[in-house]
């Protein structure tokens, strides 16, 4: 049984920690508001909040590629075929970077940030890459599946993902035939999506693969079941024999206690820290089973647990590149750059949404940071404050086909007046306080803040924009800023 956080430990910093982990952080007023609610209501305000309606991205048309696909079919000469392929490829790349910006914008602006954070978690869990799927519509469709099911029931989510066209291409279910079942999805669904290695046999993989036959994609780019391709014969899976279909296989997987352990531990790692204490994992797994794999109530338990606010959790995680950027845009008056800049920045930092490096998702943790990615984070942090100059961060000059070969414009610098008042400029400690809370998402009672106070101590007053931006950039080019 997980013990809830003691009420007397619910302070500003606990509320800030909750907001940054369950979402992407916020301004001091938002943290204050959350703090004032008390833990139960604060958690509910995040976990139960309903998303606003949100306009879909340009690629959300299932028939968006049809015209080019028809041209490709009708192409006679190799040259014609080649030029259509080129157009398809350009369209795909354009739509993907637009889709990335669409999702990032949503993460930045939504009033239900937890839903987006959970969607990000599931994206890394059911990791599917546009690199193989090659169709932005399908990648967006999967993103919606994760959003719509990501807070409901884990078994249903897994079933929905098994019918998701992007996943079906990614792990080859579309090619799976009665005579030649493809084992790719069957293997990964157990190894990576539910049980973990060593918790099933090779024969379980083979039998499960037979259950996921007959999954096809129709002309509208939706799931279609082709009964003629389905292997309806008897299968023996995890010791039970029946003419199982894919959904029944999922139900049998989820009925394994190991599934609750595996998913609960992975969720804990993403939102809190990597648990090493088997008792903690047992407690999490038993909570997850108690709520019948319903994700929303389980997440409330996670965010209520005292361990979630313990020393192992606080400021112990290296921000993912998505967290790094979304948190910056959510907490500071900084404009989002154009999609090509955004995508480039993600690539340099090692996490492009919709392009996980493999079906294992992103490793996370220390692997986000090497000399190259850290150098880039520092460069980008300074540019966020001073305005992103695409050339300065190294964005290659776009080819003529993209936006006429013109580099995107430099974004505006941090709008100092929106966070610092005229009277603050006379009070350096106010400036430190305000920037510190926004940037580090915790109160300025920590020793680190005194360094910045000293730094401003002998500046002439009122403090100028350049000094204040310099301080913000300095705060953001530290190891501390990489943590959350």
């Amino acid at each position, binding site marked *: 049984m997980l013990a809830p956080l003691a009420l007397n*430990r619910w*302070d500003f*910093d*606990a509320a800030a920690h909750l907001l940054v982990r369950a979402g992407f952080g916020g301004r001091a007023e938002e943290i204050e508001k959350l703090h004032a609610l008390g833990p139960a209501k604060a958690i509910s305000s995040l976990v139960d909040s309903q998303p606003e309606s949100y306009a879909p991205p340009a690629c959300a048309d299932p028939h968006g590629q049809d015209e080019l696909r028809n041209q490709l079919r009708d192409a006679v000469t*190799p040259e014609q*075929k*080649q030029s259509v392929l080129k157009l398809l490829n350009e369209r795909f790349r354009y739509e993907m970077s637009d889709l990335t910006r669409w999702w990032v914008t949503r993460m930045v602006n939504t009033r239900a940030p937890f839903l987006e954070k959970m969607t990000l978690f599931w994206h890394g869990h059911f990791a599917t*890459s546009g*690199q*193989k799927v090659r169709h932005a519509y399908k990648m967006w469709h999967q993103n919606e599946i994760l959003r719509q099911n990501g807070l409901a029931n884990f078994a249903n989510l897994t079933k929905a993902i098994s019918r998701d066209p992007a996943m079906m291409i990614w792990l080859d279910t579309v090619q799976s035939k009665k005579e030649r079942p493809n*084992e790719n999805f069957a*293997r990964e669904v157990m190894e*990576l999506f539910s049980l973990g290695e060593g918790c099933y046999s090779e024969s379980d993989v083979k039998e499960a693969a037979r259950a996921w036959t007959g999954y096809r994609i129709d002309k509208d780019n939706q799931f279609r079941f082709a009964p003629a391709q389905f292997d309806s014969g008897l299968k023996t899976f995890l010791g039970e024999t029946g003419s199982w279909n894919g959904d029944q296989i999922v139900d049998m997987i989820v009925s394994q206690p190991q599934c609750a352990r595996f998913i609960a531990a992975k969720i804990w790692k993403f939102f809190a820290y990597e648990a090493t204490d088997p008792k903690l994992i047992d407690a999490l797994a038993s909570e997850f089973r108690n709520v019948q794999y319903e994700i929303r109530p389980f997440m409330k338990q996670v965010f209520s647990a005292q361990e979630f*606010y*313990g*020393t192992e959790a*606080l*400021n*112990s*995680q*290296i921000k993912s590149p998505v967290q790094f950027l979304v948190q910056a845009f959510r907490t500071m008056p900084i404009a989002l750059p154009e999609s090509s800049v955004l995508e480039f920045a993600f*690539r*340099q930092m*090692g996490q492009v949404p919709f392009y996980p*490096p*493999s*079906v*294992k998702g992103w*490793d996370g*943790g*220390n*692997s986000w*940071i*090497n*000399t*190259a990615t*850290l*150098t880039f984070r*520092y*460069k980008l942090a*300074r540019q966020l404050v001073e305005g992103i100059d695409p050339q300065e961060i*190294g964005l290659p000059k776009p080819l003529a086909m993209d936006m006429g070969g013109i580099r995107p414009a430099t974004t505006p610098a941090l709008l100092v007046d929106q966070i610092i008042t005229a009277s603050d400029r006379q009070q350096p400690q106010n400036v430190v306080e305000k920037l510190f809370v926004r940037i580090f998402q*915790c109160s300025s*009672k*920590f*020793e*680190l803040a005194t*360094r*910045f106070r000293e*730094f401003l101590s002998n500046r002439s007053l009122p403090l100028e924009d350049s000094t204040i931006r*310099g301080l913000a950039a*300095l705060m953001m*080019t*530290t*190891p*501390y800023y*990489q*943590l959350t």
Partner: protein
Amino acid sequence: MGAALSWTVPVFIQQTCMVMHAQALDSAVQGGTGRDHPILVVIQLAGGNDGLNTIIPFEDDLYFKARPTIGIPKNQVIPLEKGIGLHPSLGSVKALYESGNLAIIQGVGYPNPNRSHFRSTEIWQTASDANQILTKGWLGRYFDNCCRGEDPTVGVVLGEQLPEAFNANIPTGVAIGRPGNLGFDRTSDPSEAHLFSELNGLEPDATSGDSIGSLSGPNNSGLSALEYLQRTALDAQVSAERIRQMLRSSKNEVSYPRNQLGNSLGLIARLIAGGLPTRVYYASQGGYDTHAGQTNTHQRLLSEFSAALFAFCNDLKRKGIFDRVVVMTFSEFGRRVTENANGGTDHGTAAPLFVCGGGVNPGLYGKQPALDKLDSGDLFYGIDFRSVYSTILLNWMKAPAGKILGREFPKLSFV
């Protein structure tokens, strides 16, 4: 709660010095001085190089039958031996072969080949089986096993990002996109610069002298995220300074072709000559995905490759360091035997690769895959690519190949 967050100046330098002593006892760790250890240069030919038009079985009628329009005419092939010849653009490669510096490993691949660029590249980068997903790269595992505590520049990539092959438990390696872009931006405000150094744990004298290597933590697995970040910040600063210093102190002795691979190899030669303690350099050349109109594209790519490699070898020879370097090429797959309707070739399987250097035992290794016995239109591999890795690791890098690759693979004798 306040105590939870003791954000003070690092203790990690002290801590890593203690770990250093423990590490010295570990015999697998290879110390490098920058002057004497063996160096591996990996060149990735991205996109799937057409092996059959690189190393050509020009006396096999089946070759011309399968490739009526893109087959290289017999009289243009540069013959090597036994009915095997080189693409006409590889004249310089022939010269390296004749001077005894080049080994050609034929028919390299792996069981149950995957024809996706993405997945097959991943298989080559992580040295996994076709049905196995590994997240650490083969070079990363070499760094983990043999290079703990070394300078971060033990692995250097010419490009903006580290390849998957570099993924390691202890992230290692430096990516040089543009040399002008190395290291942290300097601010003009001295008090800002000072606080930046302090908060990042960058000691004022950390960039001078031979203490550099010893400041890098040998094993950060015991370090907190904060300490790990501080270590990496120091590594970034130190390696950038070092690389700039090396580039100032050494020049190319020959001129390189003005293309991406030529630039990369030119820089690598200068860094080696400058004495950077790097064991693995990584460069790449893209564009090999020749589905259509292959003839001209492939000719251009191979000419660029050939000229860049030749310049690099000559540069190293003039610098007197050719014996310390082995170059290995690879591509995620070869291409199908039969040309397609667009004058190109689609994704295939096994292909040859080159190994080149002063210490290489020259010659042809392995067999040209048979054209009369195909695996649904594709070549059967003869040599597992991990045999090539294993040979390089064991014979050249003197590293425990079995441990790094997860099991033993038959060893070859090209080095």
